[in-house]
């Protein structure tokens, strides 16, 4: 079963001579439960690609299917609901709500969906993420690594089938970054979640099941790292 299916996506900014082709005919499929790393130089179109997958941007042509749903055919309101149930975002900037405590930040997306947070899973996540003692702290009382772990918790609590991470370790030191990646991987394996992660670091890319390379808007599948 393919969770993510990308069909010949093109993205062009501007027109005529000034046209910039950010993505040129990109297609790939990701089976359920796979951990995919996307690598490439800055400006190669990685982030554009990830934004398309998360329906934060619309392609000039092409289609994206998540769990069999064509995301670009949905209306804005439908898409919002679909996104908050099925896609978890982890950004490079932590994007935490500064007024809320760690725990409140993590359960916020669940509250937006008018659901009750799963207390047991929340406890489990806090323990796994090593934030149990700090669940009542505000984001600015935490270190960068801890803040990033909070965003991971936030992305995981809704149990989305797809997790999109844009350089989740971009501003963390190497020890924190490998910890964060390991956590992400562990959680995803446990709950059969699919991860697409943009990364600059080759060490992080090596931990992935499969590596995709984007250069000048073209995508090449570098294949599996290890079996």
């Amino acid at each position: 079963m393919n969770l993510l299916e990308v069909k010949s996506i093109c993205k062009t900014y501007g027109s005529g001579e000034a046209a910039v082709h950010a993505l040129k005919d990109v297609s790939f499929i990701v089976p359920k439960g796979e951990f995919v790393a996307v690598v490439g130089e800055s400006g190669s179109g990685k982030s554009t690609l990830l934004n398309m997958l998360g329906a934060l941007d619309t392609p000039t042509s092409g289609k994206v299917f998540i769990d069999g749903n064509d995301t670009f055919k949905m209306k804005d309101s439908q898409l919002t609901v679909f996104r908050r149930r099925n896609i978890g975002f982890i950004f490079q900037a932590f994007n935490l709500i500064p007024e809320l405590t760690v725990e409140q930040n993590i359960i916020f997306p669940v509250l937006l969906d008018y659901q009750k947070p799963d207390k047991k899973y929340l406890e489990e996540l806090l323990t796994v993420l090593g934030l149990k003692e700090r669940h009542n702290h505000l984001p600015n009382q935490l270190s960068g690594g801890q803040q990033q772990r909070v965003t991971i918790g936030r992305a995981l609590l809704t149990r989305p089938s797809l997790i999109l991470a844009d350089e989740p370790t971009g501003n963390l030191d190497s020890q924190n970054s490998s910890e964060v990646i390991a956590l992400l991987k562990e959680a995803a394996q446990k709950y059969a979640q699919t991860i697409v992660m943009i990364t600059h670091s080759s060490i992080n890319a090596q931990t992935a099941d499969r590596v995709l390379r984007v250069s000048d808007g073209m995508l090449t599948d570098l294949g599996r790292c290890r079996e």
Partner: protein
Amino acid sequence: MKSYLSLIPISAKVHKQQNRMTLLCIVFAVFLVTAVFSMAEMGVRMEAGRLIGKHGSQALQSLFSSTMAQTLFGAAAVLFLLILLAGVLMISSSMNSTVTQRTKFFGMMRCIGMSRQQIIRFVRLEALNWCKTAVPIGVLLGVVATWGLCWALRFLVGEEFSDMPLFGVSIIGMICGILLGVVTVLLAAQSPAKRAAIDLIDINRIIKEQLSESAKAINNEIRAMLKEQKKTRKYNESIQSKVVYGQGKRTRTSQILNDLSTFDFFESIL
């Protein structure tokens, strides 16, 4: 935290400073309307009291006071509309500016999964939340101002105003004040709420802008540091060599940052 709306009072506490202007606008509008209507009622009461004292006739009194009341309350109603208009414009523009300042926040909310409808509701309720403190303050000020005015009319102007009731509390004035506060805020929140409910595509643009802005800031910092380095190059050869022989772009910048921290880099920034 039971619902996402619980964020409103929490963030209101933190952003007290930024919302002061809006709060002041609401207080002022409520105050004006309460004072105007209270004064109108006091005027009617005074007239009624005077007529009873003069003629003692109930029929004449009710006739006079009704025409008097009509003109006074008519004038007050016109003032009500004017204050409403001014209040809506003032509050709406000050809210617009706070919303624009928080574009990133709303974009983030949209990314987390807040729908457009939820954002509109959020901004509206946030505005109503200010009413909770602003309206009572406005009404209280209005009542106190009425007392002051009545006292001034009675003892400073005297003559026909000597019948002015001193510590009268006008229910109509208070109700009008509260009504105005709520109506103004709801009307005023309309456009900022729509502005806050950003399109998902726009979020992407905002994120990009922010990233490039922060990148610019970092670049500027690094440029400044490099300049600084050139000056001190003679004194510390090792830094220069690290910069030249650094492998990747990333490692190079991080090394510069690391080295500069030994260079009292923090002191230079602070």
